[in-house]
């Protein structure tokens, strides 16, 4: 199976490319990147052919494309790949505008090809175990959730409003909202968001505290802020979720499986994960879905729903009042 990666703008591209190397019968054939130096280097590192324009890559004998460009470019690349008859794994958030997201989902439907959203948290073993326990009714009925997806200021295009479509709230809301939707089987009905720029001297939001209500009545809070100290915090951030049910409470700390390393020359403590790699499991599942012709665990529709919540949060913060999401 031949794969292309469209742009190494998003750092997850490196992890996905490494994962592809570990999958039998899968080859990373082409790297397309309009940043010549970055693209050439990545192509060389992973043994792929480099092209500057992704349109040229579409002429190659490919099976699927991984889109890891700047958020605002997901739509054009994804739609072009689907229309060329290729399956797509698209980095989150699906798009920066909801119309773009709809176009992508429609294109997958028309081309009868897979559009999977890169929601690796569904492949994080502790998060998946919690899903299994909830499905077994262990916590009873879910009543409330409180989650975090903290991070650091990623810089680069992530803090460019046009390319990223938003800051921390755009970047980090969707992972946890996706887990919450997966766990509850319900959609977000209403959001209230306080959003600001309070940690870094940047022209985009790095601070968000969100309050959500689901259609089934579950209430939830979420902190997607880039609030972890840049140098001294021992890891990139976190994914945590408290789930309160009628029969009990579970705390998920999805990256708790780590060693702590204090390295003299690093000048800071570091967490070194030893748990299963969710990116590898996600890529494995993407390939398996293509081979078996089965729908992905997280689809374009899921990406659209999560991004709709992030966009509604910006709207709520602008208006300083709760905003309803119409399905």
């Amino acid at each position: 199976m031949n794969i292309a990666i469209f742009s190494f703008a998003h750092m997850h591209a490196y992890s996905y490319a490494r994962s592809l190397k570990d999958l039998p019968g899968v080859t990373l054939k082409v790297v397309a990147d309009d940043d010549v130096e970055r693209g050439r280097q990545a192509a060389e590192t992973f043994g792929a052919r480099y092209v500057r324009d992704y349109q040229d890559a579409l002429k190659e004998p490919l099976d699927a494309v991984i889109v890891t460009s700047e958020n605002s470019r997901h739509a054009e690349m994804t739609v072009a790949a689907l229309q060329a008859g290729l399956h797509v794994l698209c980095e989150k958030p699906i798009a920066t505008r909801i119309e773009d997201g709809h176009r992508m989902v429609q294109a997958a439907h028309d081309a009868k090809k897979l559009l999977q959203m890169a929601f690796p948290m569904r492949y994080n073993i502790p998060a998946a175990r919690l899903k299994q326990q909830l499905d077994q009714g262990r916590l009873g009925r879910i009543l409330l959730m409180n989650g975090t997806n903290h991070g650091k200021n990623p810089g680069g295009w992530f803090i460019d409003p046009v390319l990223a479509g938003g800051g921390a709230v755009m970047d980090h809301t969707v992972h946890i909202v996706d887990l919450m939707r997966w766990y509850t089987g319900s959609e977000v009905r209403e959001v209230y968001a306080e959003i600001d720029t309070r940690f870094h001297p940047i022209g985009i939001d790095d601070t968000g505290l969100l309050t959500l209500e689901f259609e089934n009545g579950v209430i939830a809070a979420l902190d997607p802020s880039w609030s972890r100290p840049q140098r001294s915090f021992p890891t990139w951030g976190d994914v945590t979720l408290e789930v309160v049910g009628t029969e009990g409470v579970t705390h998920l700390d999805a990256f708790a499986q780590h060693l702590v390393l204090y390295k003299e020359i690093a000048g800071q403590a570091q967490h070194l994960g030893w748990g299963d790699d969710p990116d590898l499991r996600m890529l494995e599942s993407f390939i398996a879905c293509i081979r078996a012709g089965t729908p992905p665990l997280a689809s374009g529709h899921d990406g659209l729903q999560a991004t709709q919540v992030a966009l509604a949060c910006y709207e709520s913060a602008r208006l300083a009042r709760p905003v309803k999401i119409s399905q």
Partner: protein
Amino acid sequence: MGFVHAQAWQAIPEAQLVGLVDTDPNLLKTLGESIGVSGFPNLDTALREVDVDIIDICLPTHLHREAAEAALAAGKHVICEKPLALSLKDARAIIDAAAAAKKQILVGHVLRFFRVYQKARQLVLDHTLGQIGTIKTFRGGSYPKGWHDWYGDPAKSGTLATDLLIHDFDFLMWCFGPVERVYAKSLAGHITGAADHVLASLRFKSGPIAHVEGTWAYPKGFSYAFEIAGADGLIHFDSADKGPIHTLLRSGSERNASVEVPESPVEISPYQAELAHFLEVITHDALPVVTAEDGYNALAVSLAVRDSIQSGEPVLLPGRTGGES
């Protein structure tokens, strides 16, 4: 451990679990029925009635040699829970029997299949931590329940030093090579009737010094921890730290009654990874991650620790020179 291994075997597609052997007919019936595997009252009957390639021995340690020799004599490969035996003489006899039968004897030092220990070893071997100075380990909790309280009988389990701390001894030798000398104290060796709690000091031939702590004297729970300190860095881990999943369940009708359930799930359990590896070794003649000699050497250190507890003196490992090096 038999339960854990039975579950792990059933998760390995290349293996078929064809028989369970136990002297307890009730246990055989319940477990056998729940997993759909026939039970046998003794090894001889099982060997006669089912076609089998591997015997996996999860007996109390004092019964290892007899079972291993019988299985090897019948031409079967043997997987044996740690410790390989209670004495070096018995351990050597098992290894020799395997050599004579041209069959594998593989010892269940499962720590080598725990991700966190693998990661720690990698950081030692790739020199991330620089020259290693000290290692501190902890393992233990409340007193383990076993068949006829066999853990409490030194003639059956060989005491905590042999039964529990052998895990850490093997892991440390996997990282740092042979042990030069040991010195150890224990509560049971100190106060008559006390639950066992051991403090052992290990000096490695390669230089590092380790303090290994093990206990069966805690009021509840079980956990393990380690710290490895080098000239360029330090790592630590404690399984008692809050893990990825921590659940509090309401229990019964009382307002404040609850059960706490911590979990740290991985896709493939260390036990399954271990048995799958052993199967690979047996079927493809691959090199084992842990050899029978490793099992023998870990036992030698465990016994030296026990001897030091009894004598109050440092014990040099046999065949190696002592001194300040």
